[in-house]
């Protein structure tokens, strides 16, 4: 999960990384009265869990109260990349003689943490010229080596003012990265001010979703960008991604679910859900997953259902049982297409045909049907 900038900065301060003086608000309530506590000019920034807020107009400057209030009002009413803005952060502007880039993330190929340092902060890391950015692979079993701190701080500042602060910032980032199970800790830019202070003007922290059992304080925030259907699925322990299309898809295994959505697209259809049943063979669980999809159809968001199962561990007749039990509404049944392959496929297909389900063994044929029966 991506933390909001404000949440990331709260963590930064706890780890000894300086941030600009600022205030966070979730609504207009109280903003006007507290502006006197900050020194203008101010940065007014949308708090979102997705990138692209700058381009969307979610970062503004304000020279006086009136401008600040207008900016807050606009930002709190906007969406960034379709996602709700969760609040606004007002911060004092920092004057810097250098802006640099620092990040610690995980490199998939080496399976190790990597430190990235860039001489030119403030721009997208993808757009930084290659010679201005350096990387150091870090051993997950060892402490942060002093020579990496030496090399990185020298590369960034050539011994100039702020060297010590940059070193301690990297150290703090490393501790935070480890303690909080981070996928990413990024400061872009880190402002080096004239007396040689280092201040994090922005903050990006992404925490690994699979580690949240170790960070219960974050649990209630992890679902804040989910749709209603996704939330219902999550509460029931299912992995569901809502998609813009109108065909509800239930399959077992992430790969097969994706392949089913791809095949639908080849036949001119568009998936409305990615719902992975996983490796379960429990008829009640299957029934529960089907109920989510029939709910989605009953409210009109999807217009047909495609159930695509490979019976490896799961038995096809168990799935057939669950289908017959759950999909009883005649209209929903008419717009449901089932594709079963694997353990007991013949028996299952026969059961379902007798109950008037549209059943197939072939994936392509089933996808074609799911596109057809939408009406």
């Amino acid at each position, binding site marked *: 999960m991506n933390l909001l900038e404000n949440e990331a900065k709260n963590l930064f301060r706890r780890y000894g990384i300086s941030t600009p003086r600022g205030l966070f608000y979730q609504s207009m309530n109280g903003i006007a009265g507290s502006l006197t506590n900050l020194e203008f000019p101010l940065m007014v920034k949308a708090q979102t869990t997705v990138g692209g807020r700058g381009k969307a107009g979610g970062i503004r400057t304000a020279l006086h109260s009136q401008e600040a209030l207008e900016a807050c009002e606009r930002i709190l009413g906007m969406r960034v990349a379709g996602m709700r803005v969760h609040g606004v952060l007002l911060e004092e502007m920092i004057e810097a003689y250098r802006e640099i880039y620092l990040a610690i993330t995980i490199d*998939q190929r080496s399976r190790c943490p990597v430190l990235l340092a860039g001489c030119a902060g403030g721009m997208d890391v993808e757009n930084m010229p290659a010679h201005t950015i350096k990387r150091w692979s870090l051993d997950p079993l060892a402490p942060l080596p002093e020579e990496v701190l030496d090399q990185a701080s020298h590369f960034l500042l050539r011994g100039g003012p702020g060297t010590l602060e940059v070193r301690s910032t990297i150290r703090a980032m490393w501790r935070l990265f480890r303690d909080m199970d981070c996928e990413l800790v990024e400061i872009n830019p880190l402002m080096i001010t004239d007396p040689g202070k280092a201040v994090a003007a922005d903050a990006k922290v992404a925490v690994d979703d699979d580690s949240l*059992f170790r960070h219960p304080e974050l649990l209630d925030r992890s679902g804040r960008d989910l749709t209603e259907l996704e939330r219902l699925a999550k509460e029931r322990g299912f992995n569901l991604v809502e998609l*813009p299309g109108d065909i509800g898809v239930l399959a077992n295994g992430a*790969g097969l679910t994706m392949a089913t959505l791809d095949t639908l697209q080849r036949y001119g259809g568009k998936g409305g859900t990615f719902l992975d049943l996983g490796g379960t063979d429990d008829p009640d669980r299957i029934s529960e997953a089907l109920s989510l999809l029939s709910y989605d159809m009953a409210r009109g968001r999807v217009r047909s259902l495609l159930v695509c199962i490979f019976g490896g561990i799961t038995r096809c007749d168990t799935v057939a049982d669950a289908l017959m039990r759950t999909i009883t509404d005649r209209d929903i049944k008419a717009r449901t297409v089932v594709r079963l*392959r*694997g353990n007991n496929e013949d028996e299952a297909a026969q059961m379902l045909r007798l109950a008037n389900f549209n059943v197939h063994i072939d*994936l392509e044929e089933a996808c074609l049907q799911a596109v057809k029966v939408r009406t």
Partner: protein
Amino acid sequence: MKGRALLANHRLLVQGITGRQGTHHTAQMLAYGTKVVGGVTPGKGGRSVNGVPVFNDVHKAVERTGATASVVFVPAANLKQAVLEGVEAGLEAMVLITEHTPLHDAMHILALARKESVDILGPNCPGLCLVGESKIGIMPNRIFRKGDMAIISRSGTLTYEVVQALSSAGLGQNLVLGLGGDRLLGTDMREAMEMVLETEPSGVVMIGEIGGQMEEEASLLIKELGAENIFAYVAGVSAPPARRMGHAGAIVSRGTGGAWDKIKALEGSGVTVGRSLADLVGLISKRAGK
């Protein structure tokens, strides 16, 4: 070579043997002919599951049974400890079925295993099958047909789909490797490709999906070696960016990891890429003259 220990016919331990999954798949592995010699569940030593003796810790189990590898079914929160024990007890290979492993635990486990030269498959993988000889993990027993193709895959059910379709078409397999759906894997696509090519298969089928650069890295190796008869399928052509499609590793982020980039890289290395599962199996059959 890295990974080679995975391909031996091991004396196997099941870590987490008394759980529902552990018990069920122990029976299935025994039925397939795998030499399951022991199980481990802390606090449940002295029992037996499907005739297999259970021990309190890996060290004792190895001492008593001479086990050389393990398959791990423990919950994610306990995986790190389970692997530490296995590495310390001197196992040569470990297959990690566990889903939802925290990334930092995975980094730790994989770094330690590299250091101690223990070969790891997974986490979040269905395991592997040396067809007709032994099976480690959760793949269904009935789908395989003895032959000489190799399959390497990031997805469980897609592997079963493809293997079953190949078997029905008379195209047998020698080696089926499920690498896992996580972002950090003990054996990645490139390493798996290197391993299976050494066994001189008649062809290799790669089943990839969105996220990361593994397929691209494997395609570089294929080009380098000039390997032939490599087939591939990549799932997730229709996946929207920035959404995690079930597997932790299946996400198109910051313009990388998209399915088309992978398909292009593979085709650029001479790999035959099926546009659908049916297309893939059709292309393989055609090449094999079946």
